[in-house]
């Protein structure tokens, strides 16, 4: 019945490919556990909210846990995205970095600065995108470390939902629960799989996704724009004067 308590695993600065892979596997297992904890917490928050007399202390503690997980996930992302300038890094690390940068551009849609890429600078990620992704643009932008976040990508939207939870707890208006969670697209249907299944199991970790990209055949185009499909449109809008 009991599983090991979650502990933060130290991912060292491995230089070689094997080391990097092993590091990623450890990170992957930790990330999966972390993600399932996040999912569990979100379900608990939703259940809290459904009670006639919500327990405020419990809700606050669970919400704080969710925030902590989120912050750590963001920091992990930020930490990786700082690396593109270092040419000597292993190719896998480079792929992860560019993935983050590409993903950050998506977040620009909401006019929010991407985490760790400078503040409020709409053009920041765009200028970073092109030089980095010329030869190593990932074929499947959907895979990678951010996939673990699930379909819900906009962190800003999530924060809004947490805040709404507290407001509604105060006004005790259970009727607006549907609206409350309408933009939180968390995959609750997956929760059983995640919780009863295993660390190795249901979800593809970043390791699997990246292994698919490892051959890293340079794409036919040298510019990031044509490689990234829908992103083209956004980038064009941003860059056009």
């Amino acid at each position, binding site marked *: *019945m*009991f*599983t*090991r*308590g*979650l*502990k*933060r695993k130290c991912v060292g600065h491995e230089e070689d490919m094997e080391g990097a892979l092993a590091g990623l596997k450890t990170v992957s297992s930790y990330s999966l556990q*972390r993600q399932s*904890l996040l999912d*569990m917490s979100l379900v*608990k928050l939703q259940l809290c909210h459904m009670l006639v*007399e919500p*327990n*405020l*202390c*419990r809700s*606050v*503690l669970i*919400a*704080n*846990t969710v925030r*902590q*997980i989120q912050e750590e996930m963001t920091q992990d992302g930020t930490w990786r995205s700082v690396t593109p300038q270092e040419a000597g890094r292993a190719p896998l690390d480079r792929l992860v970095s560019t993935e983050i940068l590409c993903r950050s551009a998506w977040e620009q849609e909401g006019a929010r600065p991407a985490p760790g890429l400078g503040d409020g600078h709409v053009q920041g990620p765009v200028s970073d995108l092109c030089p980095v992704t010329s030869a190593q643009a990932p074929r499947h932008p959907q895979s990678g470390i951010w996939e673990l976040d699930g379909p819900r990508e906009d962190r800003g939207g999530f924060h809004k939902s*947490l*805040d709404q939870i*507290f*407001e509604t*707890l*105060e006004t005790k208006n259970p009727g607006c629960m549907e609206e409350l969670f309408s933009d939180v697209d968390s995959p609750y249907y997956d929760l059983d799989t995640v*919780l009863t299944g295993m660390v190795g199991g249901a979800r593809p970790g970043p390791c699997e996704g990246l292994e698919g990209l490892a051959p890293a055949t340079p794409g036919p185009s040298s510019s990031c724009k044509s490689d990234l499909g829908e992103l083209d449109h956004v980038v064009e809008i941003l860059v056009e004067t």
Partner: protein
Amino acid sequence: MTKVTTTNYKTIKLWKISERDKRPEGYNLKEEDGRYRDPTTVTTLRVPVFRPMDLMVEASPRRIFANAHTYHINSISINSDYETYLSADDLRINLWHLEITDRSFNIVDIKPANMEELTEVITAAEFHPNSCNTFVYSSSKGTIRLCDMRASALCDRHSKLFEEPEDPSNRSFFSEIISSISDVKFSHSGRYMMTRDYLSVKIWDLNMENRPVETYQVHEYLRSKLCSLYENDCIFDKFECCWNGSDSVVMTGSYNNFFRMFDRNTKRDITLEASRENNKPRTVLKPRKVCASGKRKKDEISVDSLDFNKKILHTAWHPKENIIAVATTNNLYIFQDKVN
């Protein structure tokens, strides 16, 4: 005759508790069953007399203090002046006069202007046993604030803040939850206070804010199970704690109907079980032991066999005698020191 205050989340009641072991018999106008007699049938007069009866304990509500709390009340504490008392909910603490039921004064309010910014709630509060102007309240982040009501009407600024720095080697996503204080109790002397968080009991010297003077592990073997305990919600259980009359021993509850006592002088501790199966009345309780890992010795219980539905949240110690009350889910046990 005793007076007791109770609360059911938002309403506070003051009850008078009395014992009755005699009752009057022989009324002139009433039958024994309470029916009125027809006065025309009364031919002689008699004086009613008291006759013994089976001991009955009665509780009658005397005051109802309502509508002062928006959130769930977690503590009530009577002041040493025996005239006022405080009640605390998740975000506010109110001061009442025992005789006045329609008015209270708000003395602590930690509700943020924007509820979105709420990250900490009040978990317990208590008046100092000797200083009628001093009280403490604990929070879900593991801090205790001591306030002096003479400083200002609204005690938003604490006089002292008690907080132990976090141990970085034990950090996990559950650190904050297990640091949340479920109970705070002053010693009878007023010199110390005790706090209960999920895994431990801490004794604080009121003169030292930066760390407790003593820490006792209640069930450290649960630390590696925190994820499961979070999943089944046990991590949110709120255990109480109490001092014995001389402040030399502290007691608190645990799971599997176990409760623990720590002797502050000898540094010895004991685990006992409150259950009917193992103990007949008047038998001496056998010490219990939980086997954290490795080979389980005879009579030890392994962590995985513990019943997490059997929790002892409430315990109390008689202020003068060595008599304790221990509440399990459905039963109340009274134990006393073995008398020679």
